[in-house]
């Protein structure tokens, strides 16, 4: 093995250790619930807790709603920017990056000021409307990932020519968007969707300050009061996120060959 390759392997090893040592330590700690033996007792307790199921279900439902709203908002926007308004791309990219710059706590305080129960649009006045506000805030949080994923997908196909081909065959905008463009950026949309799912499942700030029973605040609550269960929850949370990443890989591999329009 020459010196260059050895150096690469050392860097990879260091990277792997950086990510996996804390994870393995957390996993090892989560197995120590019973004194003197390794067991999955902490996992059993966590999974038996009705609040676990309730909060995971709540967060999963909100994640699906966030994904739907996100797709509805991002796909037509990214498509239109690519097709007709390429000059606006920097502006749209800047807007979509804002949630990475503005802390979630600032966003949620802004929401609380604008949508409190004595405002014109009192979304925080009822549980269902607060859920709605939470979905919209999650859409904002996931915007950088969803937009980038969809935009990359659109750049990989010849959007303009495919659109014109469909138009010349008599298709209107809904058919073009749903029948031609969306299926061809399916993998990109799914990538954005799974990233959104991973973000929403673990999100704490928004849900906590809007006082909704999401998985993030439950995780924090358990962490503050118990010893081994938070470690088990962290591992479960990682497993959910990794499952999402795995699904991206599976769907990515299942994608058909290169886009004809991009030849």
């Amino acid at each position, binding site marked *: 093995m020459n010196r260059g390759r050895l150096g690469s392997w050392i860097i990879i090893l260091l990277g792997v250790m950086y990510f996996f040592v804390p994870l393995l330590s957390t996993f090892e700690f989560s197995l120590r619930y019973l004194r003197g033996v390794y067991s999955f007792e902490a996992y059993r307790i966590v999974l038996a807790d009705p609040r676990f199921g309730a909060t995971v279900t709540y967060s999963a439902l909100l994640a699906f709603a966030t994904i739907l709203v996100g797709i509805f908002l991002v796909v037509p926007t990214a498509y239109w920017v690519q097709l007709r308004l390429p000059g606006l791309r920097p502006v749209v990219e800047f807007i979509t990056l804002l949630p990475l710059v503005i802390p979630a706590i600032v966003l949620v305080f802004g929401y609380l000021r604008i949508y409190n129960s004595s405002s014109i649009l009192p979304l925080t006045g009822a549980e269902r409307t607060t859920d709605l506000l939470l979905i919209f805030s999650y859409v904002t949080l996931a915007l950088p990932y969803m937009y980038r994923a969809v935009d990359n997908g659109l750049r990989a196909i010849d959007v303009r020519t495919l659109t014109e081909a469909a138009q010349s065959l008599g298709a*209107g905008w809904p058919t073009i968007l749903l029948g031609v463009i969306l299926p061809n950026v399916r993998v990109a949309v799914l990538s954005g969707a799974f990233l959104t799912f991973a973000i929403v499942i673990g999100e704490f700030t928004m849900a906590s300050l809007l006082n909704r029973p999401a998985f993030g605040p439950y995780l924090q609550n358990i962490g503050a009061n118990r010893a081994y269960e938070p470690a088990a929850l962290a591992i479960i949370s990682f497993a959910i996120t990794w499952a999402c990443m795995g699904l991206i890989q599976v769907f990515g591999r299942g994608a058909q060959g290169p886009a*004809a329009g991009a030849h």
Partner: protein
Amino acid sequence: MTFLEIENLQKRFAHTTAVEHVQLEVSRGEFVSFLGPSGCGKTTTLRIIAGFESPSSGAIRLDGVDITHRPPNRRNVGMVFQSYALFPNMTVAENVGFGLKVAKKPAAVIRHTVEEMLNLIKLPTLGSRYPYQLSGGQQQRVALARALAIQPQVLLLDEPLSALDAKIRVSLRNEIRSIQRELGITTIYVTHDQEEALSLSDRIVVMSEGRVEQIGTPFEIYNFPRTSFVASFVGTLNILRGQVADPARGKILVDGQEVMASRGLEHARVGDGCSIALRPEVVSIGEAAEDGNRMQGTVEDVNFLGSIVRIRIRFKDNAISLDTFNNPRLSLPQRGQALTVSFPREAVLALEAPSST
């Protein structure tokens, strides 16, 4: 009778005029090619006909109906793109049937038409394949079938063979022409390849810098180019510069040697500069017939091109290339050798505008 009418079409972008006063009448079933270099406005004109661009002024009429401002999906115009533009998520059959599905035709009709179209393009067994499983030539045939399946009033082809290799290009070119003849569909074809335009078209529209330079049959365009641009763009051409010696008789002096043009030079005066054009294939080595032109020069270069040998002869400021068929018994002249060449008067084309080449 005019089927497609392009009336005084103009298209301006911010600071440039892409199409300027384009006027064309196309008969039903006619095959018309727009020929010109990149940026000459041919594709923009085609895109205006398709409805993808709206003209700054002018009108497009199809079968007597003004379609200038009609959206592209309501024009009933089929389009074939250079990049094929097949929908990657659909099979060949789904691609071909897409337009019919959009038009909400019954499933049986769609199935039957798709079968018919796949037979027409000689790919009857590939209906279940995806575009990425086909070669470039096959993809372009499918694109053609997809455009024809909706039974468009006009078929538009935007450099459809440019992305293919030379052999496939020739075979698909012949196929396009035979399908067009079989269906009798009015066709507008955009290309920068003169050979394609000459071999396919009923008429050719030669464009340069947004303007129409000449409209005519391939025979007219090749043999009687009206401007120096057409003469130089279509085919290989020798352009010689000289001075008018006798305008009435069409006599010109090229590097001090007399050349007689096919006709008198209208509006020219003695001593005026002028340009004449000669195709390489009309020039031959040796003495001319009695009324033919004869010039003497020196062999500058001899290029062996397979079936043809191209010999370049320099006079003084001007040079000329001549083509002669290859023959194993041919004795080729040597570089630097003095040589007499001849060409008939009828082959000398006096050009309208002074040549810039």
